[in-house]
């Protein structure tokens, strides 16, 4: 009596399935709200970048050429890329490793909670403390007359600069970069470490495994994707940095951002299109970084939900 088919005779027709309606994003009204933002982003981000890319593939007359990109492999330019890659790789690895150890100490390592929130707060500040003030701080610390340099000389009799240390060099820059790379690593890897369930360790122990075995078979494999992705992020972060390097070493170190900066201010390359090609090369490197980062993050989030 009450279980007959609802649409048997002339009852209400079900509405058209959603598939039959035109796709939402094709309706012009739906774009309305995005337009101002999109227009701005295009005008002041996409188009400038695009014009650089265009210039990278143009010759002096405006015709298409690959010569500029080829010129990137000239010794002095190639060496600048290499140096920048070295700085970025060193600070990514060092920052990644020590950042991991610090983050481990306040999460799984069992240090008291106030220390954890203190560290995270400080890292939030320190990761923003890049550029000119950071360079000044390190000059005041480890420069030729910096407090630590003087302290080591007068109290411990160790003359840093006589031993070959120089703040205004590759290693000095790396040391300075670490000040914002380390905190960035701590901030990004902490959620991943929080996501490592302590039950995994206990389960593996109940199955007879030692701690070392657990880390080898479960802990490290699970931690590797987020670790790698964070280090890649650090790499990109250092690669694109200009202000700190400029304030610390001026033009001393032949870094790609410094070279581009010099090119903007005075055409040191004597070839504007080469400058554009350098910028293009930089964007390629950064894009590769962010693609690798998001790919690895996706894997990480599946396991560390």
């Amino acid at each position, binding site marked *: 009596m009450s279980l007959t088919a609802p649409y048997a005779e002339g009852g209400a027709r079900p509405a058209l399935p959603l598939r039959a309606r035109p796709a939402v994003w094709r309706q012009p009204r739906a774009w309305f709200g995005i337009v101002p933002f999109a227009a701005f982003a295009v005008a002041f*981000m996409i188009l400038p970048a695009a014009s650089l890319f265009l210039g990278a593939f143009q010759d002096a007359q405006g015709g298409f050429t690959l010569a500029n990109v080829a010129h990137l492999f000239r010794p002095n330019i190639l060496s600048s890329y290499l140096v920048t890659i070295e700085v970025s790789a060193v600070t990514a690895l060092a920052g990644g490793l020590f950042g991991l150890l610090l983050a481990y100490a306040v999460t799984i390592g069992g240090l008291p909670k106030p220390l954890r929130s203190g560290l995270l707060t400080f890292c939030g500040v320190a990761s*923003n403390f890049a*550029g000119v003030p950071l360079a000044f701080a390190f000059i005041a610390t480890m420069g030729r007359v*910096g407090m630590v340099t003087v302290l080591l000389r007068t109290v411990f009799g160790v003359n840093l600069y006589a031993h070959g240390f120089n703040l205004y060099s590759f290693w000095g820059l790396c040391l300075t970069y670490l000040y914002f790379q380390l905190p960035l690593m701590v901030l990004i890897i902490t959620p991943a470490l929080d996501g490592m369930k302590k039950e995994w360790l206990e389960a593996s122990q109940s199955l007879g495994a030692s701690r070392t075995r657990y880390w080898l078979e479960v802990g490290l494999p699970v931690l590797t994707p987020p670790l790698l992705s964070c280090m890649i992020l650090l790499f*990109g972060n250092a690669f694109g940095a200009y202000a700190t390097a400029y304030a610390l070493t001026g033009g001393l170190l032949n870094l790609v951002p410094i070279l*581009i900066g010099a090119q903007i201010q005075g055409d040191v390359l004597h070839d504007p299109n080469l400058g554009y090609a350098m910028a293009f090369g930089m964007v390629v490197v950064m894009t590769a970084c962010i693609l690798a980062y998001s790919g690895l993050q996706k894997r990480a989030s599946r396991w560390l939900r």
Partner: protein
Amino acid sequence: MRGRRGWSWFWMALGALYFFVPLLATFLFSLHGKRGALGFAAYHKVFADPQFLQTFSFSLEMAVCTIILGLALFLPTVIWIHLRAPWAKPIVEIFSLLPFVIPPIVLVFGLIRLYSGPPIPLVQSRFLLVAGYVVLSFPYIYRSVDAGLRAMDLRGLSEAAQSLGAGWLTIMFKVILPNMRVALLSATFLTFAIVIGELTLAVMLAWPAFGPYMALMGRDLAYEPAALAILSFMLTWGLISVIQVVSRRVGGNGSSVGGAH
């Protein structure tokens, strides 16, 4: 278990050393302003320098403009995405991540190339600097606004307001914004921190901002730069701390991750 705890303290101590020694050293260094005596002479000199006030207020002005423009751009857009066009979310998200792929030095290069001459000569205009700053702060403003909107029941609140007869302007200013105080504060202070000390865009576009001023100081003077560094650090610390405190009180997780400039 105890051995593990020991190593944790060790790394913590090492980290604390690395972070605090430069700050302490810089502070002590900055106290050497007057020959022979430790005092705040360097700070007095900095504050007394007319250029300090000029450049700082210039950067302040730029920061305010950036915040206003940035929020004016993002608020309606993100609200629109949440309410009417969720399919557009990936597009906006990618746009807000692009500044990482286009670092400031590359961005300013492109801005100069594109807007130097005809048809749109903007290079001499302050608007270009502000526009560049807005692009730089894309990721931070977007994340803050998005988090703030997600934390409230946007659809429910706006539909309730509509059923009570409110128009969209009323909804925006009386319903949505008051509930986003933490997010707006977070976005504001982060943008502040980025713009005040920013060097790359300001130098390349040749503006008398605070960043270039500091760099200039560093060229000739010894102790004043250290004082500037301490002041800058304290300013950043103050801004970020406020964000952390306010968002923790409301129960958020003040994400204020910065990066290199």
